């Protein structure tokens, strides 16, 4: 009698465990959410991107606060954004020169490359010469309006280059020397 009740208990616990594991292993329950996984992953992105981490083998530098960038001299870059699929978008981007931002952070040139990393892991690299161009800016406005929030507080604009370099949602800049 006792053995039977112990076995019943064991079976119940096992069934419970199985149910728990099956729930945990379930592949893909249909979501009622109108948002895709890639969109849900952007939660908290904007706030995180307000601080850009700097990595430089030549020394330590404080993180860049994107609000502070706005106190640097402001420039307008009128150019055409050429996307990788050949599509073009003409506009005016307003921001601070990247060269001013780097200097303000105490980063001395020359360096080999500047490797910029985005929130989603996307990476674009630009050479020293490109980073120092007057039309290479960290922009916070597009055509007189703040950047769309999904692009983050600032984005890189390289007026004379294809959209590949126009990285947005920047979280980290790594100086390669």
């Amino acid at each position, binding site marked *: 009698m*006792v*053995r039977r009740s*112990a*076995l019943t*208990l*064991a079976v119940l*616990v*096992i069934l419970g*465990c*199985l149910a*728990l*594991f099956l729930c*945990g*292993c379930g*592949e*893909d*329950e*249909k*979501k*009622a*959410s*109108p*948002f*895709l*996984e*890639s*969109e849900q992953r952007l939660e908290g992105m904007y706030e995180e991107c307000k601080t850009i981490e700097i990595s430089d083998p030549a020394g330590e530098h404080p993180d860049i606060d994107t609000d502070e960038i706005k106190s640097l001299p402001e420039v307008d870059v009128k150019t055409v954004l050429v*996307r*990788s*699929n*050949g*599509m073009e*978008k003409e506009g005016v981007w307003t921001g601070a020169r990247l060269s001013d931002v780097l200097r303000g952070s105490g980063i001395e040139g020359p360096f080999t490359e500047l490797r910029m990393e985005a929130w*989603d*892991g*996307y*990476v*674009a*690299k630009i050479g020293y010469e490109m980073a120092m161009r007057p039309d290479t800016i960290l922009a916070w406005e597009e055509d007189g309006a703040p950047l*769309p929030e*999904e692009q983050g507080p600032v984005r890189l604009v390289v007026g004379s280059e294809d*959209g*590949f370099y126009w990285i947005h949602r920047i979280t980290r800049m790594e100086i390669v020397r």
Partner: protein
Amino acid sequence: MRVRALRLRSALPLFVLILGAVIAGGMCGCGSSAIPDEDRSELILATTTSVLDSGLLDVLVERFEEKYPYRVKAIAVGSGAALLMARQGEADVTITHEPRAEKEFMDAGYGESRREVMYNDFIIVGPAADPAGIKGVGDAVEAFTRISASGLPFVSRGDASGTHAMEMSVWERAGIQPAGDWYMESGQGMGYTLRTADEEGAYTITDRATFIVLDEALDLEIMVEGDPGLLNVYSVIVTDPEVYPDTNIQGARDLQAFLFEPGTQELIGDFGVDTYGQHLFYVFK
């Protein structure tokens, strides 16, 4: 009383053994692997967002990591961006759905090998009332021509995605340069573009997998499907280690091979059927 306690004691080891076996079995099933973290190297996979948004990416990565000594860093971006990452040596392997760009990538010498791994199709969706009268025409070029002529709203991705590349190729075949108040560019991903089309009562083009995932949250309906020109082929490309010697070449080759293992192909082909009642992807027989 003593006899009862003894019986209970003798049943307990059996119970513990069975419970242990169930827990161990469950952990195996959930992707816990015997490969220690320190034996794993990082493998950077740049992939198109539809593979992530369908839910397939997570399942594939979990299975791959169970079997192979890598820690996959999956970066979901547009196809164009994924290939551009690989061009700069920032991705070991890519999964994209933009054949023209992939061929250019290979011709330029950035890829070691490219294999077509799965497919579905692009579809044109729009409001149920179908004011442009395109439902059932079965031909994307004809549908786009009617939408353009009607001046009814169309929402374009307008970004560096395979979907946008397909859209532009249809406009090109139709001999139309889309522009005007009726033509809106979201500049964003498929989810935002579909929701915008839904709110505006507009037409748009989407990959089928993403539409299936969001279908219940939208009032949009499928207008055009089955056009052979709307085939959506996903390819896996291993970055050429001769261009970037730091590439995790073995990992990239292993991932590519894994995707063609019979078990993986079966998983891809069946993926989502339980949940959505239809295939999200197909594999080549």
